[in-house]
């Protein structure tokens, strides 16, 4: 029996001057011509250019080529380009293989001879492999035209609004009782000193009233299955113990609740809330929740029911149970945000030891009109501070904690300095490593704050202590001393202050890792989600149809967050508006004649993409779920399972061509 005639065309690219001086491209072409099944081998200046592609197309037609090898750059760069050319010329796009002689030979090898020899090996491997390529097809699948947004901070809200405005059904999930996230806690925003609430609350209301946005607060995503265009999502709706359809948000329940001494999470534990509570007055939705850990009835099973008694709407329901909701979406936007670094481990700064040491978030609440002091910057004793220190980079730029710069702390620290000056007239010292103010009007704000008389001291604080230099000085009584070196003047400083603000860095939100694992999005060593490409695909992820918005991808300020949220929304909308997606071609295939039914593959598949057909006693692949990772192929001892385009044969022929 005669095998199908295999005619391979090999093209060696000069890549301008990138490959050709280092690799002797003519020698490589000549070498390629001598390889089995190679019909034609050429070299050309730019294979990826239009004439370069035309070359391939013409040759395919003229010489009846049915396999193509291009030796040029990384397949991550131009594989798709050449596959398209193959298709244009009428051969299957998988009858193509690329040899990466630029990144792997020309650019990394010093010696010309060695680079050429390596290029030849890589070409031989590609030729051997392409000989055993099989034609593969993908097919078009309809997508579900709705979008899931996880996280209801400013990033998630903006992504939801933008997507909703495009006419897509959006499901916005927030685990807290209200949307708003961190931004809702701020009073002013840098550098313009806009009132955060003034720009934030209309957006919150817009989300709450948007006809295309379905809001699930006090809810969490518990499972995500499926694939681009068709994700099945299960949402856990925690019981509020209040019937949302009846509650009119009058707030009488909160007034009457006898349990009043629960530290308020929203106010960073600087004030108290009741057991039935709404985190803050502008909360959306305006429906309170009952905290089951503190409510007399729910936590202690003791008689109470004050809220129930006074609720005219009859909205209180102590029997509410957790509910599961199942939705299907075509795309997912992750916007899980950040959490502030906990400075307690940095004992030298005295947080948790001295009452007048605050984190930046605590200070935000102290300064906020809806905060515990009604917006007056007061110390615990009720006096205005006269001397305030602000310490930058707490937890950030610190090899022991977080190596990265948290990007927003310099700017918000200067905002704090301005606000302290403005509201209290206190003297302010800022201790910084470097001031980072790259942003529109940011440097100008830095200059302004300096002009306002804030002392900027370059030096990392060594210690905050209650031991005074001069205990006899009655003015300093009860003050803290900030010990630091001014590295510009090389002088040690000991500055007595009334209040210390720690400008803590940003960390990924609690539970972000779980969300990532559920969806399959990976994170970097710090826990920030990894974008598909740092520069060219900053809102995409490795999972098709899943996008990132805001701080979950890395620390960001509000303008960048909003821009990224709009970007993520744009990508999601672009994906869904076409209405269909193509299935992968390079996926698992289980040969029914070889399958022994051991189901080892079923066990190793993390995508639940393999089903066991009890009737036939064999495993079958769901081509929409399969991602082509190859776990099944390796686990299957009889090679019944294989990954199309990465078969044993193809890989082993490649190895053989390199080694023998």
């Amino acid at each position, binding site marked *: 029996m005669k095998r199908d005639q295999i005619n391979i065309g090999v093209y060696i690219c000069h890549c301008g001057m990138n490959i050709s001086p280092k690799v002797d491209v003519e020698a490589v072409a000549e070498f390629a011509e001598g390889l089995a099944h190679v019909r034609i081998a050429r070299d050309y200046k730019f294979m990826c250019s239009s004439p370069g592609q035309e070359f391939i197309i013409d040759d395919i037609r003229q010489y009846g080529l049915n396999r193509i090898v291009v030796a040029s750059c990384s397949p991550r760069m131009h594989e798709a380009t050449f596959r398209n050319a193959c298709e244009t010329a009428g051969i299957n796009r998988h009858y193509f293989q690329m040899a990466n002689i630029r990144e792997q030979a020309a650019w990394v090898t010093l010696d010309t001879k060695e680079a050429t020899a390596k290029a030849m090996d890589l070409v031989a491997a590609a030729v051997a492999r392409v000989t055993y390529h099989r034609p593969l097809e993908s097919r078009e699948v309809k997508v579900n035209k709705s979008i899931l947004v996880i996280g209801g901070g400013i990033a998630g809200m903006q992504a939801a609004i933008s997507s909703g405005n495009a006419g897509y059904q959006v499901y916005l999930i927030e685990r807290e009782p209200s949307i708003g996230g961190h931004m809702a806690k701020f009073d002013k925003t840098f550098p313009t000193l806009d009132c955060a609430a003034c720009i934030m609350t209309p957006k919150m209301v817009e989300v709450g009233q948007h006809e295309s946005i379905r809001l699930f607060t006090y809810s969490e995503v518990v499972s995500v299955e499926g694939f681009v265009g068709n994700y099945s999502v299960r949402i856990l709706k925690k019981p509020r113990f209040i019937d949302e359809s009846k509650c009119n948000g009058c707030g009488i329940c909160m007034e009457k609740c006898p349990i009043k001494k629960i530290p308020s999470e929203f106010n960073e534990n600087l004030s108290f809330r009741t057991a039935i509570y709404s985190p803050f007055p502008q909360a959306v939705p305006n429906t309170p929740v009952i905290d089951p850990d503190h409510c007399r009835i729910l936590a202690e099973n003791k008689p109470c029911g004050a809220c129930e008694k006074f609720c005219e709407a009859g909205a209180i329901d102590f029997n509410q149970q957790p509910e599961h909701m199942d939705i299907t979406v075509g795309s997912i936007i992750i916007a899980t945000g950040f959490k502030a670094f906990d400075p307690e481990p940095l004992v030298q700064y005295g947080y948790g030891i001295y009452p007048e040491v605050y984190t930046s978030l605590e200070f935000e609440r102290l300064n906020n009109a809806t905060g515990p002091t009604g917006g007056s910057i007061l110390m615990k004793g009720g006096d205005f501070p006269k001397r305030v220190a602000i310490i930058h980079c707490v937890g950030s730029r610190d090899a022991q904690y977080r190596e990265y710069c948290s990007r927003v702390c310099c700017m918000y620290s200067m905002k704090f300095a301005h606000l302290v000056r403005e509201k209290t007239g206190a003297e302010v010292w800022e201790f910084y490593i470097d001031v980072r103010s790259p942003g529109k009007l940011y440097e100008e704000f830095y200059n302004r704050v300096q002009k306002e008389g804030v002392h900027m001291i370059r030096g990392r604080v060594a210690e905050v202590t209650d031991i005074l230099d001069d205990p006899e000085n009655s003015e300093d009584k009860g003050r803290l001393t900030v010990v630091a070196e001014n590295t510009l003047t090389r002088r040690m400083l000991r500055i007595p202050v009334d209040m210390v603000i720690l400008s803590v860095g940003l960390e990924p939100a609690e539970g972000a890792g779980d969300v990532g694992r559920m969806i399959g999005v990976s994170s970097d060593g710090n826990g920030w989600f990894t974008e598909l490409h740092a520069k060219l695909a900053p809102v995409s992820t490795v999972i098709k149809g899943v996008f990132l918005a805001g701080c979950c991808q890395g620390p960001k300020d509000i303008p960048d967050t909003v821009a990224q949220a709009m970007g993520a929304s744009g990508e999601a909308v672009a994906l869904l508006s076409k209405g269909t997606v193509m299935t992968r071609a390079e996926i698992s295939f289980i040969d029914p004649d070889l399958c022994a*039914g051991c189901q080892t593959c079923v066990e190793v598949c993390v995508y639940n993409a393999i089903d066991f057909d009890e009737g036939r006693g064999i495993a079958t692949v769901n081509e929409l779920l399969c991602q082509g990772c190859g776990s099944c192929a390796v686990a299957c001892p*009889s090679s019944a399972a294989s990954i199309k385009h990465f078969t044993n044969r193809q890989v082993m022929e490649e190895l053989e061509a390199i080694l023998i």
Partner: protein
Amino acid sequence: MYSVLKSEKGGVFAVRSLLKRLLTENMVDAVFVAAKTPYSDLPMPTLISSPENIETADPLAPVAPFNASRQASILLRSDTGKRLALVLRPCEIRALIELVKLKQCVLDPAILIGIECKGRMENALFLEQEKQRSGISISFYQDDNLKEMICSACNVCDHFQPVGTDLTLSVFGVQISTGIGVEAESETGTDILKKMGYSDVQPPAEREAELRDLQQQRLEAKSVLMEKTAEDIKDIKRFETLIANCLNCSNCRVACPVCYCKECVFVTDVFAHEPELLIRRAVKRGMIKMPTETTMFHLTRLAHIGHACVACGHCTSVCPSGIPVADFFITVGSKVQDLFDYEPGRDINEPIPYLVFEEENQ
């Protein structure tokens, strides 16, 4: 629960009467046991449903033409609702448990009757001995000369006591000419013995000492064999000398109870080399032996099932070239098993090592 099954004709007769009662008292629908066919002295795995045919059963004969777990797994492919008693050796049960893990069969319909095994002879040797003196099923347990004749894998086997059974037929500390011991290892087993009216007695005093002695003897022999084999394979040249006469006949793979693939990857197109490739190899290397892939075959088989090797030794027994396949499977297999702290057939719930992943793995 330990009982003694007495028979003045010897242990085999005691076992037969137990099996017969299982059938006559409708405790099982059929018995799977090694039995002599009318045509040969070599006991083959048989499926017996008529009580009279139990007379041919000879599970104590020191021979096993092949590892019966494969045949057992065919019977246990699915739960038919029929109850089956299976009389198996320890290595057969261990292989069967591996096959259950690989979903090749189920144990629901099975009553497992394990035999305490002192080893098996190669088929030809057994037939020769059986011809010389009939009744080897008894004399084997009495004549120390015969014990020397067991095959090399059995000689280093320290799994001579079956695990995971319902009933275990016990030959240690027992005068096999007067009967056999039986120990219930599960509730099912205890029920059977109670129903049959056997009473719980103390196992013979010599039993523990005999087990201990054999254990020690076997472990010593095993370490000698492993040391020698390690030396024989310690570099690829030596190993290739050891397997130089391999014919690529795949007998070892066919005989292997845990090689369960429907079609071995070595007969698929993965290794169906094109003539160009073979010629290229010859040109580059000067010469190649054909068929190729001999070393590849053995190493790949080790990688596939080294962790699951139950050391039954049938691969060696069937090799036409006399290659000690089991020796290097035992030696290398135990290294892999140690690495993963895995013991094939130890526990039906012990997961196959390649299917569990630690989150942090250095």
